[in-house]
């Protein structure tokens, strides 16, 4: 009997280990291949022709790629900054104040997370077009429209993350600060902000990643001469694939991994619970 149970446990362990291995293979084999072929000296994307750094050199020298990269980074930084400020403010107002329409605003805030990218993209496009039609405000499609669209969807994510942090923080702490002669601003600066900072940093990195990754929405609102790196890569595929894509993708992947690691480090450095 005992032997049987042990045997069964042994089997279970073996099957679970195999499963874990398969999952990792499934996750990481494509990445490994991508990295491998980015060093391949062959005009075809998926064929090994010896080691080379040519594609990375091309990445460094190609003006279009450089331009797209620069747009991507600027859009990501500016949209992150704006959405962090607005998203944090939204989270604070929803979590700390009761006002008319509070619940409706709450529900609406989550909408951009739920609705499909394409819908969001069409909405933004129509919005910018009708700005011109209705109030005569001309918005040139390009850098500004991309940035604003990214802000529009990032706010939701930032405020969700910040709110989670705020919800775990007792309001009494702010009252205690004010009782100890802090003005409202000082109470926020010295008590609330340090305690929700991990949430804000997490939200910012999320916004940064979302902005750097976005293809669908950006493609709808981008104009000539201003395109982000993912959209450029997408365009490359349609024009005929060159292993340059591999190099570009690896660089983007490396940047994403770096952001994730940074966010983990930031969370750990601040550490601790808020209760």
């Amino acid at each position, binding site marked *: 009997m005992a032997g049987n149970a042990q045997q069964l446990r042994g089997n279970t362990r073996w099957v679970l280990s195999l499963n874990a291995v398969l999952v990792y293979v499934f996750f990481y084999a494509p990445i490994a291949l991508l990295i491998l072929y980015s060093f391949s000296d062959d005009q075809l994307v998926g064929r090994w022709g010896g080691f080379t750094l040519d594609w990375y050199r091309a990445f460094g020298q190609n003006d279009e790629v450089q331009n797209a990269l620069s747009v991507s980074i600027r859009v990501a930084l500016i949209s992150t900054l704006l959405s962090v400020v607005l998203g944090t403010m939204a989270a604070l107002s929803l979590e700390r104040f009761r006002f008319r329409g509070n619940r409706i605003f709450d529900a609406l805030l989550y909408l951009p997370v739920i609705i499909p990218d394409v819908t969001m993209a069409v909405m933004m496009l129509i919005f910018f077009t009708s700005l011109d039609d209705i109030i005569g405000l001309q918005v040139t499609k390009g850098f500004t429209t991309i940035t604003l669209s990214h802000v529009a969807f990032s706010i939701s994510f930032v405020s969700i993350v910040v709110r989670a942090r705020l919800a775990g923080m*007792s309001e*009494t*702490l702010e*009252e*205690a*600060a*004010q*009782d*100890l*002669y*802090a*003005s*409202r601003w*000082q109470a926020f600066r*010295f*008590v609330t902000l*340090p*305690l929700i900072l991990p949430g804000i940093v997490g939200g910012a990195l999320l916004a940064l990643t979302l902005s750097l990754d976005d293809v669908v929405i950006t493609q709808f609102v981008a104009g000539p001469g201003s395109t982000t790196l993912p959209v450029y890569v997408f365009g490359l595929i349609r024009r005929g694939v060159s292993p340059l894509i591999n190099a570009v993708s690896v660089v983007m992947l490396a940047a994403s991994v770096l952001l994730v690691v940074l966010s983990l480090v930031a969370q750990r450095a601040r550490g*601790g*619970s*808020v*209760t």
Partner: protein
Amino acid sequence: MTAAVEITGVTKRFDDVVAVDDIDLTIADGEFFAMLGPSGCGKTTTLRMIAGLEFPTEGSLQIFGEEVGTLPPNKRPVNTVFQNYALFPHMNLLENVGFGLKMKGVAKPETTQRALAAIELVQLGGMEKRRPNQLSGGQQQRVALARALVNEPKVLLLDEPLGALDLKLRQEMQGELKSLQRDLGVSFVFVTHDQEEALTMSDRIAVMDQGKLLQVGTPEEIYERPANRFVADFIGQTNLLEGTVADATTVVLENGTRVAAASDHAAGTKVALSLRPERANLATRDAAPSDGAGIDGTVAGITYLGNALVYRVALDWMEVEVRDENRPNADRLNAGDPVRVIWEPGAVAVVAE
């Protein structure tokens, strides 16, 4: 002398709910003042109004003669020890205690020095680098106390500060708080729902219920001469015997017994006699009522408390409890024994609704 806190006609409404209903209250300088009542009675709201965390809807609130009705909390010469301490989790003990001085703009060396002295005062010396989550409940309680006292408030407000501690620690802290208050000579305003705590520690007690202030007085006044039925029932244990006022010195109980009890209620007023279990005695049926009165009944049950025995006595129309000290060789009564409940003159208090 100017009162530490002077509350005049203060009402606080939250939307339709009246949390505090037109109260007048004077708290003297250097007084240990307890606000006592069941949860939701308005005692915490009153405390928060003194702290400036809530503003009165109506009325006047003065601290040392200065009107502070809508002054924000950071502009008031009071500090609060919060119910769950509300220590800042991201700061160590020294930073927590020094926070108030830092906000006031006191120079850093002086802040550190005074904070260290306050930490020493609450016997936590050597722990100033620890975070709140590295401290026990009792220690957190002391930090909260030090964090408030270091600012030398004119009035210290305490919102159920001992509620989260276990019994032994609570009794220890009661003594410490009391002696601290005596040493500092600062007014402590103390909110609690624990009547025993209030009786033990306070110079005066305010009893509140449903937003109303029912009685203010010394622990003895409140226990001996409760202003009404609620106070009599809430403070300590008591038997409430329903009756009607016959004249200035007599109350007629429901069963017709005439009891000598002084009251200033008009004849015919429905009242209750508050008879504390420890003030009542049990005697045999033939015992002469000693001026007070005697009511016949039967022992219905006995509870053994160790230091005392509590007899439940069934009267014709209700049950009363009588408490006897557990003395050696005393005659024990048994369930079913016929008895007469008697008491000394002046042992009962007459209370109306």
